[in-house]
């Protein structure tokens, strides 16, 4: 597989971890309780750790003195290939948890396949990350159940979150050109094949949480092509500020 296409394929996986990691890190010190604050930022740390592994690999592939930091901080909005779901802003806790659950369920299914990739670096990252992500899913799934089957208000809030975020789930299973090429080479995961199982599992948990499954057939897309929602620019402005203001600065 051509290097530049492999890099694009990796962005399609790694950028999700970066952007969701960044979103969760915004909650540091702002979680609804100390325990959930720590949990969400722990998850953020795992995701950023995984991002570093992917970006270090990209830096190696690209050569020419590129570093993981260049890749994280110096791309423009259109060059980030993360799905729309992960850039959605933190509103209330129900929304944050639902976003997390809808992503975790997909993330785990993806890594379960990626651990068999023919690419040794990608399968190593996946085997490491899978242990962390199964823990994330346990946490977010538990909370969806607790909120759904909780008080009238928690149920209403988590149901609203499910209804709003549902529109971003279909994109998870779209194949990009880089995906198709990586799949053909035995490197990538055919995400379209994960769809049925994903919705089956998600619906099962939502039912257990006494929530209703949205009937909407309209889905948003674009993140995988770099066409993001209006929230992405603000997120990147925060993320990139230091490197843009003080190029090459280090801790």
């Amino acid at each position: 597989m051509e290097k530049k296409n492999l890099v694009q394929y990796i962005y399609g996986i790694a950028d999700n971890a970066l952007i969701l990691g960044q979103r969760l890190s915004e909650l540091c010190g702002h979680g609804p309780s100390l325990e959930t604050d720590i949990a969400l930022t722990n998850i953020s740390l795992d995701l950023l750790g995984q991002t570093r592994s992917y970006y270090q690999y990209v830096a190696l592939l690209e050569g020419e003195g590129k570093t993981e930091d260049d890749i994280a901080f110096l791309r423009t909005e259109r060059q980030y290939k993360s799905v729309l779901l992960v850039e959605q802003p933190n509103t209330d806790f129900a929304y944050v948890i639902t976003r997390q659950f809808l992503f975790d369920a997909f993330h785990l299914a993806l890594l379960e396949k990626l651990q068999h990739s023919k690419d040794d670096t990608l399968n190593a990252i996946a085997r490491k990350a899978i242990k962390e992500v199964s823990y994330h899913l346990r946490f977010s799934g538990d909370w969806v159940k607790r909120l759904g089957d909780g008080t009238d208000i928690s149920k209403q809030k988590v149901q609203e979150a499910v209804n709003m975020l549902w529109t971003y789930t279909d994109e998870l299973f779209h194949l990009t050109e880089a995906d198709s090429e990586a799949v053909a080479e035995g490197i990538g995961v055919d995400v379209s094949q994960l769809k049925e199982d994903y919705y089956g599992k998600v619906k099962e948990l939502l039912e257990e949480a006494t929530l209703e499954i949205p009937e909407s057939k309209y889905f948003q897309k674009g993140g995988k092509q770099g066409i993001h929602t209006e929230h992405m620019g603000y997120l990147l402005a925060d993320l990139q500020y230091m490197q843009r203001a003080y190029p090459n600065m280090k801790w």
Partner: protein
Amino acid sequence: MTITEDKHIDQKLIPILKKVSDPEIPVLSILDMGVVRSAVIVNNKVEVIITPTYSGCPAMDVIGEDISKALEDAGYESEVKLVLSPAWTTDWITEEGRAALKAYGIAPPLEAEADKEALLGNKKIVNCTNCGSSNTKLVSQFGSTACKALFQCEDCQEPFDYFKCLK
């Protein structure tokens, strides 16, 4: 990325590496933690391979630097590499390491199944590191670092960390 299947550590280097500890759990040597996968001397240069406990563990950079420093003090040049595969598991924490954790106030990891029951709050099986009581409750599945969960003893009220099982 090099893949190491077996742990291989040169006997001469053990006393040096034994002195390097996890910065977040200072009582635990990195050898007892199981993060050193190999350390060999090639042409007077030490090549060390370490593996992270969790992908985002911020201690890894420090551990790498501490290893280089310890080896330098012992007169060795060194190169420390980080590999991800095979992925670290809590099974690699030695018996000595488990005892050190407990003495430090961190409950050592249970077996996978028991760990799941404990972290779902289904069973009271994590013993208090202060009084030994099993009458403890899960406070949070996530603790002060990525590798720990938070518990509290309902008898002596001591809050304590539990080192999560990772397989």
